[in-house]
């Protein structure tokens, strides 16, 4: 495999994602954990760009880094007094390590070849088609407009879309009710 710019960018984002991900679970300071989480999520956003999903990359930055990670920062600062307890891990840390390693190896050696088998030919063809297109506009990508239309057309995803809105509203109201201090 020749060293293309895409491969270099992919490796960069992959190392960024996995390295920061490791720091998230091993860092003893929770504040640093969230900052590494932001870096990791940014790496995933970069991978989305490489997969020609620019809208999802933007949403990743806006929603995950801009909202969820910042919300976590707020909560960490609100619960500051107990933030740095001596033990980082619970008693099942060794078991968790083994389980995660087994999970990773299983995904790596069982599911990944299986996935290649399922869609291997199609993926190859598409990769060739995409490789033949020499500049970016030749690659067919889904625009925000198409995505927005798909969300609200009847033959598209209007029902899941509305259900998701209800879920989001319920979650927001629930979060306010749960987090509110009782007046009584």
């Amino acid at each position, binding site marked *: 495999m020749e060293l293309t710019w*895409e*491969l270099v960018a992919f490796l960069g984002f*992959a190392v960024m994602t*996995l390295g920061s*991900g*490791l720091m*998230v*679970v091993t860092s003893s300071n929770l504040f640093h*954990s*969230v900052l590494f*989480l932001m870096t*990791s999520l940014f790496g995933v956003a970069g*991978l*989305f760009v490489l*997969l*020609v*999903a620019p809208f*999802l990359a933007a949403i*990743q930055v806006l*929603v*995950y880094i801009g909202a969820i990670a910042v919300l*976590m920062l707020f909560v960490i600062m*609100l*619960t500051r*007094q*107990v*933030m740095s*307890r001596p*033990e*980082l891990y*619970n008693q099942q*840390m060794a078991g*968790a390590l083994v*389980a*995660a390693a087994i*999970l*990773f190896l299983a*995904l*790596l050696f069982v599911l*990944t070849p299986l*996935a*290649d088998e399922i*869609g291997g030919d199609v*993926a190859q063809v*598409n*990769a060739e088609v*995409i490789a033949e297109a020499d500049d970016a506009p030749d690659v*067919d*990508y*889904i625009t925000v407009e198409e*995505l927005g239309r*798909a*969300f609200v057309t009847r033959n*598209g995803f209007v029902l*899941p879309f509305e259900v*998701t809105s209800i*879920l989001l509203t319920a979650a*927001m109201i629930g979060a306010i009710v*749960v*987090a509110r201090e009782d007046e009584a």
Partner: protein
Amino acid sequence: MVPLWMYLVVSAGLFSIGAFGVLSRRNAIAILMGVELMLNASNLNLVAFWRYINPGEINGQVFAAFVFVVAAAEAAVGLALIISIYVKRHTVVAEDVNLLKW
């Protein structure tokens, strides 16, 4: 174009790291962070398969967008619960909250 398996390897690694965080960390916020990592790994898988197997269809991106929404809802409710527990019991350590544990 980068082969599909490389994305799957990154996704598997991210998912396993998240799973380790969820299983082993004591702080509830750290556990939530592990869940976020796992959700991101699944999203990466979804988008990668969409790109390599069926890039003409819109379904893969739509599914990933729904995962974003669910992740946002989960984070909001989870963090609200953590704040509520902290206010009432002055702890964010998951194993200290064991009232309903058998």
